[in-house]
């Protein structure tokens, strides 16, 4: 679906000094796969996603994206402040896409009464949910999410994780999400790609067995934490997502 190969990505600072930030990162994304791109803050997860999305082409390597409909949620909501929430959602839908049910999408992310509101009338948490609804509005075959649950309370994060998981399950869409939270990733993803560095390289490509129970996940968490020091701050139970509430 998506093929990405980054041989080298260099950042040029304003004083013209060069710094290699990404090196030898290559992976493919298959339909229905939920990939978590993990690594410490500032390692280059967002840069990798930007390259994947075609927003940054100043790198050595290749990205093959095909024509898959792609829904994106950035770290910041990036809603257009002069459009209402519903208009923000409609804007990204073209005539060639299936027409989304905006009200149902907003219900899904628990924003039932926000259609007519302007972004500045929303809290940050609400705006991030609207941004997720916008990503879903294009009926994505690939969903790219950059730290989707940061700055949300645990309950809301669980709700949104559930929305993402159901979307992947129901539509067969692939999901790529960047996060620094291992416990969260273990609950959501079917595959973990761990970046370590700097410069960031693909340090591990770990499959998460489908339907793995809590004990398996805890064991995997312990193993990865001992292997990669930067995960030690969030142990299962202290970080990650609480179990998703049943849909009401």
């Amino acid at each position, binding site marked *: 679906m998506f093929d990405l190969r980054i041989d080298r990505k260099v950042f040029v600072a304003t004083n013209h000094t060069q710094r290699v930030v990404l090196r030898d990162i290559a992976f493919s994304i298959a339909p229905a796969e939920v990939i978590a791109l993990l690594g410490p803050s500032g390692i280059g997860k967002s840069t990798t996603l930007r390259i994947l*999305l075609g927003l940054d082409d100043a790198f050595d390597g290749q990205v093959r994206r095909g024509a898959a409909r792609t829904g994106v949620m*950035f770290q910041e909501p990036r809603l257009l*402040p002069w*459009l209402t929430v519903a208009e923000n959602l409609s804007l990204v839908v*073209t005539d060639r896409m299936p027409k989304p049910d905006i009200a149902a999408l907003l219900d899904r992310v628990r924003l039932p009464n926000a259609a007519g509101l*302007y972004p500045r009338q929303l809290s940050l948490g609400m705006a991030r949910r609207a941004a997720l609804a916008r990503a879903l509005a294009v009926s994505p075959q690939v969903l790219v999410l950059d730290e989707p649950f940061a700055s949300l309370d645990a309950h809301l994060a669980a709700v949104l994780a559930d929305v993402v998981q159901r979307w992947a399950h129901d539509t067969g869409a692939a999901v790529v999400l960047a996060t620094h939270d291992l416990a969260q990733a273990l609950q959501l993803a079917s595959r973990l790609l761990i970046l370590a560095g700097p410069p960031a390289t693909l340090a591990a490509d770990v499959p998460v067995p489908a339907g793995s129970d809590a004990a398996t996940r805890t064991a995997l968490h312990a193993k990865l934490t001992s292997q990669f020091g930067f995960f030690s701050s969030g142990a299962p139970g202290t970080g990650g997502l609480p179990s998703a509430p049943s849909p009401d």
Partner: protein
Amino acid sequence: MFSPRLFSLIGFIALWWIASQVAASRTLLPPPQAVLAFVGRECINGDLPRAFAATLSRVAVAFALAMTGGSLVGYAAGRSARINVWLDPWVVIALNLPVLVVIVLAYVWIGLNDVAAVLAVVVAKAPTVVVTVREGTRALDPGLAEMAAAFRLSRWRRLRFVVLPQLLPYLAAAGRGGLSITWKIVLVVELLGRPNGVGYALNLYFQNFDVTGILAYGLTFAGIMLLVEATILQPLERRASAWRSDV
């Protein structure tokens, strides 16, 4: 009931009347009612409407051309550092060139016609539009542009829904400042080399030392421009920024 603005205006007219009473001669400063009567006579004989039609059409054409051309060039300069490097010295020269020089050169090179008149106004006005829109373009939010690219929005949707709303405050500022400058330049252009329009009329009354005529045309013109600003430009600006205050 009465707003301070109205009181201020009435005060101005009263002061004018008093000054006209103490002035050495009525021809030096005619009272308000004499000017009003003059405006009435000129309206009836058709001279004033004809002059205003000529001037306003020049203002409209020059304003539209300066805004369109200046916005396009300013946008290009704001987007591309390379274009800006080449363009910037031209803009600086154009900004500092006395308007009178532009007008005279246009008449000398193109001839005493309307093309030269309108072109002189455009050349004098467009650089300020370029500078304003260039600043607006530089201030465009790269995050929103990235969002538009990630969702593969069409060129038209990006322009209409992402770029234009961000540029609107700058376009409005350029437009409001632009109109008042444009009509002042048009009057000079007409005074120097057109056989009709308000500028021509002002020149004629100046030659005859007719202060009543000068005040009649000058104040009526200022009044019409204020009306255009209050009834067209300000409501447009309010509509464009409605999302900011709408709660």
